[in-house]
């Protein structure tokens, strides 16, 4: 769970793509997922996601993310199916339309969430920030804010699991509780978690400031992020995905 957003080093073709290409492809896949309501197109997009993960040599991570999302998806699917009243009944209170739209909603959720975690797995956050500044001319301050926010997510998860570990060692029965009961036990721990997060944020800001953050300009980066033929191809493929999902 805790390494879900972490970078996995590698030299695959996907790793070597321009960070902006990867970001744009992520956005394109998300947009495509929202443009279409067709189950087969959504399944196709899911396949594209899995394929990208496998090509980048992070099959295990990809499947892990997929499994995690499936758990949420099953829950949402059941809820949605049981609450949809439109369409002709197939069985008990379940309707054909309920089944179809629920499947679409859940698939869309998976297809939208996967590329983001995949992108973070194959792109260094610092590269992402630098490329945003150099290629997209986003002010460094904003690029830094975005990437720092991303970096805090795994840190937050890690801290939560560390806190639970420490409380288990003190006899709080996290290891025996399940489901809602566990959630109830976790709530009181949110206060220290929030306090330490706010403190972390403050420390990060101060640490950045004392190292001369405000002096930094777009020209400070020493790595360059040129676009190659493969980047263009990838973006074309992404555009094709959009066209496909808009037409079908």
């Amino acid at each position: 769970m805790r390494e879900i957003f972490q970078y996995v080093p590698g030299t695959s073709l996907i790793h070597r793509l321009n960070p902006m290409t990867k970001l744009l492809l992520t956005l394109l896949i998300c947009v495509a997922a929202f443009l279409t309501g067709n189950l087969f197109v959504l399944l196709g997009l899911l396949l594209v996601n899995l394929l990208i993960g496998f090509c980048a040599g992070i099959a295990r991570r990809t499947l892990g993310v997929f499994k995690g999302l499936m758990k949420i998806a099953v829950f949402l699917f059941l809820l949605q199916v049981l609450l949809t009243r439109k369409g002709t009944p197939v069985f008990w209170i379940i309707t054909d339309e309920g089944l179809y739209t629920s499947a679409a909603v859940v698939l869309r959720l998976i297809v939208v969430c996967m590329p983001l975690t995949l992108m973070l797995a194959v792109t260094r956050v610092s590269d992402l920030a630098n490329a945003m500044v150099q290629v997209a001319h986003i002010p460094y301050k904003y690029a830094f804010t975005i990437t720092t926010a991303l970096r805090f997510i795994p840190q937050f998860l890690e801290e939560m699991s560390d806190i639970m570990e420490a409380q288990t060692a003190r006899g709080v029965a996290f290891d025996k509780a399940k489901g809602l009961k566990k959630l109830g036990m976790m709530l009181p721990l949110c206060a220290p978690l929030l306090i330490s997060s706010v403190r972390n944020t403050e420390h990060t800001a101060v640490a950045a400031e004392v190292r001369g953050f405000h002096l930094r300009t777009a020209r400070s980066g020493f790595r360059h992020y040129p676009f190659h033929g493969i980047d263009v191809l990838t973006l074309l493929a992404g555009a094709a995905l959009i066209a496909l999902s808009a037409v079908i």
Partner: protein
Amino acid sequence: MIRLENVSFSYANLGPTVRDLSFHIRKGEFVAILGANGAGKTTTMKLIDGLIRPTSGKVTVNGADTRETPVSQRARQVGFLFQNPDRQICRNTVREEILFGLQTVRGEEGEEALKQRVDAVLEDFHFTGDEEPFSLSRGQRQRVALASILAVEPEVLILDEPTTGLDYLECCHIMDRIRRMNEEKMVTILMVCHDMEVVLDYARRALVMAGGELLGDGDVRTLFRDTALMERASILPPQMIALGTRLGIAEADTPETMAEAILSRRGGGSA
């Protein structure tokens, strides 16, 4: 009491973090685990408390396999002070924080008994009890965390760097308290500490680790005098020990005994 048999452990998909550890700690021992940053000390301690389970090998505490009993059930037997006190503190006042740990494992003793325990610990650690943990300094928070672990009076204390961030007086005070628990109540102590003077003063046995392997296990003084071992584990032995080794004086480890040994030698030589 604590027994590790050929224990190896690796995090997720990395290589092994600790390799083939075997040792046995008896009741009432005071053991220090020494080693450089990243040597696997914290990992070893977590293995002992069952917070992580060995990839291969077996860990038993009081004869019970850590894989078979849940960690929370062991809390009364084993107290664990984490390297980062903020992971543990979860209540709004120091008093509540200390009481919280007691309630989870000693709830059956009743309000009054627990309150007495809390008061005793508060006094020992120089707290009034109304302080807010998160507005205390780092060293003070460390003391809060330690106080709430000691209050439970477990049979085994696992302390991950208990004295980091403490001033000299507070360090001595707390270590003396830990030693009292060890001597009077036969509490088994297992501690990681980067201050070799503290290790020399308090621990009797040491486990020396490097790169996830156990390089040495034995009497603290004997290990400190093993220059080759200390070098391999990147440990700088206490100065008196280093001086003693250099001069070939094995029995002295304080400035007083060292001075005596040197003087008697000189006296012997000139007479």
